[in-house]
């Protein structure tokens, strides 16, 4: 147990990213896949903040990137849930295996 620094934060961020990747590969329910994507986006945010704190302290670029990523993630989650609910209405299921045909 050493004093936490940049490498510890990068470890957490990488671990969270690959937990999200594992969830994205194994889950077949669209909502749980969306949750895995949220974990991946959060690990990216953590990375930006860690680099801003330890390597780039004279500017705040990492903070701005994190704010933009959070805003885009919120928009993405809203659109994804609208699509999922629409899919549930037409197919009575939100399993990706049942959602294989497109409109055209």
């Amino acid at each position, binding site marked *: 147990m050493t004093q*936490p620094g940049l*490498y510890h934060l990068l470890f957490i961020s990488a671990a969270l990213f690959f937990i999200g990747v*594992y969830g994205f590969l194994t889950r077949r329910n669209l909502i749980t896949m969306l949750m895995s994507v949220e974990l991946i986006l959060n690990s990216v945010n953590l990375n930006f903040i860690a680099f801003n704190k330890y390597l780039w302290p004279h500017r705040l670029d990492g903070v701005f990137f994190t704010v933009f990523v959070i805003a885009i993630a919120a928009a993405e989650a809203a659109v994804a849930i609208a699509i999922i609910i629409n899919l549930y209405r037409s197919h009575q299921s939100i399993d990706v295996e049942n959602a294989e045909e497109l409109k055209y």
Partner: protein
Amino acid sequence: MNGATIIFYLLAALTLVSGLLSVTTRQIFRAAIYLLFSLIGIAGIYFWLNYQFIAAVQIVVYVGGIVVLIIFSIFLTQQAGELLPKQQIGRKIFSALAAFCGFALTMVQVWKHSFNKSTGDAVEATVANIGTQMLNVDESGYALPFEVVSMLLLAAMIGCIVIALRTKPETT
């Protein structure tokens, strides 16, 4: 080993354990709650790093917004008390293998790389500093991306309404 270190390791453990439980549990509602705790752990790490504004945004947007949205959509689309179907063991093994190999590769690269710290006075990430730096138009400013993101949010809002609109059956 002082208090701050212990708190950091506790927050890291909270984040990673609840993240792992969130992608492995078979009850979808519990998955959402574990995701909530994972996001709270990340907000705690932001607090630990003295980025209070980002931590507040994380709690407001993720914990207060996205997780609530996800829970609502679970209520709308899932039957109560139903477990998610079991996955094939082969798919689980290969996914775990792929994730672990990617993680190991990333960590080896990170340990071997030595990062260069920038020289310069540290800027405190207060709300005043964030506001003045983000919304000015000189070389450190992010006014244009800010406006682009506001347009994106507007487009996403209209898109959500259009997608989720119930198409009326032809009655007239």
